[in-house]
């Protein structure tokens, strides 16, 4: 008989659990609400063979398992964020039972409330700036070299163009960031992502999250479009809205 734990996805405020309407979480289990002093923890049952210490240790080594868990976690957070102020938990926050969840919510009530105050009514946008790929910046349309020196000269020019492109892209990224922080209430720079995971070409010179008031997404995206039009030397990739993951950190974290 498998032992079960309670997986905590997020903590919401002013959420009517009925509105979740049979939402399914990880392992297709029903998502329930655990209430504590006005906060609602969103939980579902997970098999501790998979989500216990030993199971997690094994499973987290598998990218496929991690992807399923991450997307399942995110799906519940997204659904809740559409209904009420929602502070997402980090992946794999697992309790023995609802009483354990309730105890922790009471204990962390004030810090979690401050996070909810900060993110309520806001959503997150992810913006990346990428250089054009080496091919884009390279010898497009160059005539074939007819001599060794000609060949070397062409290669040197290509290399210089690439280096100048990367420097310019970085300066452009700063201008994009400066323009976006003016229409965001907060921003957080993130490390660039690996092309092996994203499949992107070119170099990611900027990756950041912006906290934008709900209802001002159009204005934010208008700035993205303006910057894209003004800086065709880079690609600007804006995605969202996300629940405000990047801004849901406790004060001491």
């Amino acid at each position: 008989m498998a032992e079960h734990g309670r997986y905590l996805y997020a903590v919401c405020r002013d959420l009517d659990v009925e509105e979740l309407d049979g939402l399914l979480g990880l392992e297709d289990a029903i998502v329930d609400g655990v209430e504590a002093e006005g906060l609602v923890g969103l939980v579902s049952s997970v098999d501790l063979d998979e989500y216990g210490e030993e199971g997690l240790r094994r499973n987290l080594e598998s990218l496929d398992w991690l992807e399923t868990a991450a997307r399942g976690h995110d799906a519940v957070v997204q659904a809740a964020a559409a209904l009420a102020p929602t502070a997402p938990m980090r992946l794999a926050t697992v309790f023995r039972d609802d009483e354990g969840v309730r105890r922790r919510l009471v204990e962390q009530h004030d810090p979690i409330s401050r996070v909810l105050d900060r993110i309520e009514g806001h959503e997150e946008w992810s913006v990346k700036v990428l250089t054009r790929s080496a091919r884009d910046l390279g010898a497009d349309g160059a005539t074939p070299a007819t001599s060794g020196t000609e060949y070397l000269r062409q290669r040197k020019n290509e290399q210089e163009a690439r280096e100048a492109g990367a420097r310019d892209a970085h300066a452009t990224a700063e201008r994009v960031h400066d323009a976006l922080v003016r229409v965001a209430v907060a921003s957080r720079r993130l490390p660039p992502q690996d092309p092996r995971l994203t499949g992107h070409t070119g170099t990611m010179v900027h990756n950041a999250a912006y906290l934008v008031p709900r209802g001002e997404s159009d204005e934010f995206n208008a700035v993205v479009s303006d910057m894209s039009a003004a800086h065709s030397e880079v690609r600007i990739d804006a995605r969202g809205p996300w629940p405000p993951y990047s801004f849901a950190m406790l004060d001491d974290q």
Partner: protein
Amino acid sequence: MSNDVMTSPGRFAPAAYGDRPRPEGLADVLERVLDKGIIIAGDIRVNLLDIELLTVKIRLLVVSVDKAEEMGIDWWRHDPMLTVRERGLAEENEALQQRIDELESSGGADRG
């Protein structure tokens, strides 16, 4: 050029729940659920430190440079793709230059 501007709504996957669009990039999802969000201790003790230790391989995939501070003005120099490409090019240049020198000096010798 406008097809390079990847803004909403064209790039979204269908909504899984409700009407909210869901961005679909795995790297985006992982960097949020692994690195962001509220950290509180659960009863299962693997949830904090162990994730940070056990997902080192995943982190290497999510983060292409070792430290965020390397995002300074020259972090692109550390892009392994770029570095390998530049190094290959430099070696190629050197070999060609050497060949040209040889040809030029032997040509000079013939005329002399």
